[in-house]
C-alpha cells in the first residue's frame, strides 16, 4: 500500500492541475441524441443485450472475427442511437455493427434484424422470406411473436417488456440464455 505524505500529495495535485488543463484544451463536444424517444433508446439497449444473451451457431458467422450485424429493416426509429450504443462493443470477438435495409431484398448477412413498424403491412411476406435463416428477428409490431417473429417488444404501463417465441427461435437455430428467458414472456403461437 503506497503511503503518500503531504509533499507527495501536493505533487499529485500539481499533476492533476496539469491534466485538467490539457483536458480543457482538448475538449470535444458530444452531441446527445435528443430527437428520438426514450422508448427507442431503451429498445436500442435491449437489442445490445440480446446480442449478448443469444447464441448463434458458428455457421451464422463467416469467420470468428466477422461482425455481428444488427440490421434495421424499414424506417429507422433509432436515428444513430443504436450505432452509438453498439459502438466499440463486441460479443465473443464479433464486433457489433449496424446496417440499414430498405426492403427485404436488400437484407444481407445479419444476425439480428429489427423490423420497423413501417413494414407491418407486409410482415407475413418479410417473415416468410427470412425463414430458415439464423437471424434473430425483433420488432415492436403487435403480435409479432404470435405471427412467427422471435422477439416482440410490448410496452405495458409505460415499461418495456419483451416476448419470445421459443419455437421460432429453435427453428432459426438460436439458443437463448436462461436469464433472457426468465425475464421474457414466452409465447406459444396458435396452431395454424
Amino acid at each position, binding site marked *: *500500500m503506497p503511503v*503518500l505524505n503531504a509533499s507527495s500529495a501536493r505533487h499529485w495535485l500539481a499533476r492533476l492541475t496539469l491534466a485538467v488543463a490539457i*483536458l480543457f484544451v482538448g*475538449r470535444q463536444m458530444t452531441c446527445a441524441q435528443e430527437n428520438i424517444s*426514450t422508448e427507442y*433508446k*431503451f429498445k436500442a439497449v*435491449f437489442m445490445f443485450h440480446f446480442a449478448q444473451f443469444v447464441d448463434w451457431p458458428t455457421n451464422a458467422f463467416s469467420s470468428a472475427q466477422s461482425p455481428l450485424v444488427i440490421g434495421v429493416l424499414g424506417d429507422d426509429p433509432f436515428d444513430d442511437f443504436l450505432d452509438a450504443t453498439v459502438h466499440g462493443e463486441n460479443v465473443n470477438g464479433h464486433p457489433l455493427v449496424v446496417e440499414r435495409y430498405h426492403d427485404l431484398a436488400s437484407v444481407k448477412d445479419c444476425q439480428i434484424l429489427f423490423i420497423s413498424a413501417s413494414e407491418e403491412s407486409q410482415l407475413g411476406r418479410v417473415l416468410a422470406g427470412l425463414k430458415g435463416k439464423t437471424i434473430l428477428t425483433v420488432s415492436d409490431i403487435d403480435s409479432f411473436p404470435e405471427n412467427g417473429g422471435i422477439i416482440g417488444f410490448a410496452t405495458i404501463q409505460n*415499461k418495456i417488456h419483451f416476448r419470445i417465441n421459443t419455437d421460432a427461435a429453435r427453428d432459426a437455430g438460436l439458443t437463448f440464455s436462461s436469464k433472457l428467458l426468465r425475464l421474457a414472456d414466452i409465447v406459444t403461437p396458435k396452431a395454424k
Partner: protein
Amino acid sequence: MNSCIIPIAKIRAGVRFTGLLITTSFLIISTNASLAQTDVSSASANIDTNSPSALKELSLEQLMNMDVTSVTREPEPYKEAPASIDLITSDEIGRSGASSIPEALRLADNLDVAQKNSHDWAISARGFNTSLANKLLVLVDGRTVYTPLFAGVYWDQQDYILADIDHIEVISGPGGTLWGANAVNGVINITTKSAEYTQGLYVDGGGGSWLRDFGGARYGGVLASNVYYRIYGKYSGYGSEVLPNGNSANDSWNMGQGGFRIDDVPLSPNAYTLQGDFNAGHENVTTGGRANVFDYNLLGRWTHTLSDDSDMQLQAYFYRTHLTDPIPASFSATTPPILLAPTGTLIDDLTTFDLDFQHRLHLGARNNFVWGAGYRRTAESDQSDSGLAFNPPTLDQNLYSFFVQDQIKLLENLHLTFGTKVEHNDYTGFEEEPSGRLQWDVTKNQMAWVAVSRAVRMPSRVDEAENERVTTPPFNAIIPSILVGNSNFVSETLIAFEAGYRAQLGQKVSSSVSVFYNLYNDIRSAQASPPPAPLGFPFIFENNLKGETYGTELAGDYQILNWWRLHAGYDLLKENIYVKSGQTDINAAHNETADPQQQVFFRSSMDLPANVQFDTSLRWIDSITLNSGAALETIPSYFELDARLGWQVTKNIEVAVVGQNLLHAQHQEYGYPSSASTENIVRSGYGEVTCRF
C-alpha cells in the same frame, strides 16, 4: 459515583468500537419472494437516458423497470417491498460527492450517520447510535462485515470503487427473519455491480483538503464467452480533524483496497460469482499511537435456476480481519489520578467461514416460498498488553441457522408474508426471529403495509468476555478489574410494530412514510459487584434495561423539471429506555442512546446545459445528549451542506469539485468521551478527475 461511568467511557475512547454484532448469514434473498425484493429492480434514478453508456450500465431487469415516459424516476421496488427501505443508487452516490461508503450512507433518510473523527463513524437506524452501536446488520455482496469482538462495523475498513457499487439498500426496522441476529434496528446491503457491467477501464484521482489524495483504477474484461471479470485498486489519504481547542486531532489516516470479481453468466441455468478483496489501513489515533488494519476475503456463489419461479443459491466465503489498536492508559477518577494501566496494544485476529444455502419456489398459484440454511464458524484471538483484554483471549464459535418464509397471495392486491428464522449460537443457544407482513396494493402506484417482527441482538465478545484490567501494582492486587463481561449475558430482544405507505403520485412526485413502535428488552447495562468487592469493582455487564422507542420516517421526491429534482426527508425518534424494576444500572439507562430526536434532509440535483451536474445536500441534525461521559452533555444541533459540481468534459472524462460540511469551519457531530475532548469535523473540499474507456 462518577468513577463508575468513567470505565465504560474509557473503553470507547480506546478502541474504535463502532457498531454492531452481525451474526448471521442470510442475504441475497433478493429474488422475488421477500423483503429484499429491491435488488432485482434497482433501476438507477436519474439515469441520463441520452447516454448509451449510462443505459448500458443497466441490467435487463433494470431496463425493464425504467419508465419510458419519464426521463428520470425513482426505482420501482417501492411498490413491492413491505418495509421501510431507502435505496441508494450508483448514480446518487456519484452525484453526492461521497468519497467513502459511510459518507454515501448520508443519502439514506432512515439512517443517523455521525462522523466521530477523521476515520470513525457512528451509524444506526432508529436509535441506539452509541459508540458501541450494535443493532444494525451490514452486508457487502452477501458477506457480513462485522467484528464479533464489539458487535460493530469498522466503517473505515469498508471500501470499494464507489462507481462499481450497484446500489446500497438501507432497511430500517427488523430483518431478522431473513438476515438473522443483529438485524434488529436495520439492515444495510451493499451490492457491487456484476463484472458484466463494469467492462473497460475506469480511472479516477484527485485531492483536496481533508481528503488529501486519492486514486483508483478498475479494468473489466472478458475471460471467456459469458465470463466477465474486473480487477481494481484504490487508495485514499485523509488528513486530521481538529480538537475543540483548535489543535490538530492528529488522526490522519490512509487506506488502500484492491480486489477482483468474476461473473460467469452462461447460457445455462447456472451462474457463478467469485470475488475477493483486501484492505489495509493505517490510522493515527488522537490519544496516541497508530492503528493498523488488514483484512481480506474470498467469496463464491452459485445460483441455479430451476424454472421461471424457482431457484437456489449456494454461497461460501472466507473472511479474515486483523486489527492492531493502540489502547490509551487508564487512570482513576480520583485527585490526583492514579495510573491503572499504561498504554498498550490490542491485537485482534478474526477468521470467519460462512456457508449459506437458500431455495425459492412457488407452491401452487398463491404461495411464494423461500427457505434456507446456514453455517458460520468464527475463530477469534485477542492478544493484549494493555488495560483492555478479553477472557478467554481466543474463542472459536459455531452458528447454525435455518429459515422459512412464505408469501401468500390472499387477494390479487393483498399479500401476507410470514416466516421465522431459528438460529443456534454458542453464547445463548436457540434464538427465534419470526415476522409477519401484510401488503396491500391500494392502486397500481400506491402500497400500504403493516408488520410485526421479533429480532435479537446476540452477545458480543465485549458483553461476554471483556476484561478492563488494572495492571499497575499494587492496585491490581486490590482491584484486578474495573469492568468485566458476563458469561450469562443474554440476547437483547425487540418486538417491533411497523406500518408504512408509499405512493407514486403522477410522473413527478413520489413519497413514502413509515411509523414504528419498538419494544426492547434485556438491553445492556452494567452493575457493581456485590460486597465484599472493594468499591463495587469490577462492574459487570447485565441485561437490566428495557424500554420503547417510536417515531416516523418521511421521504419525498419531486421532479420539478426534467433537469431538476428535489428530495426531502425527515426522521422523528423518541426513546424511553429505563432500568427494570428492582434492578440497577451504573449509567442510569443513559449509556445506550446518543441519538438526534429529529433529522431533516434536503437535496437538489440539477442537470445543467453543457453536461454539467450540480448537486447540493443540506441536512439538519438535532442535538445529541451524550451519555458516555461522567455527566450528561449535549452536542448542539447543526445545519451542514455538501455540494458537488461535475462536468462531463468529453464522453470519457469527467471533472468534479466537491465541498463537504461547507457551513461551518468546524462542527461536532458526535462526541465522546465528552464534548470538550471530542473532535470537530472540518469544512473540506476536493477535486476529482474520472476517466472511463
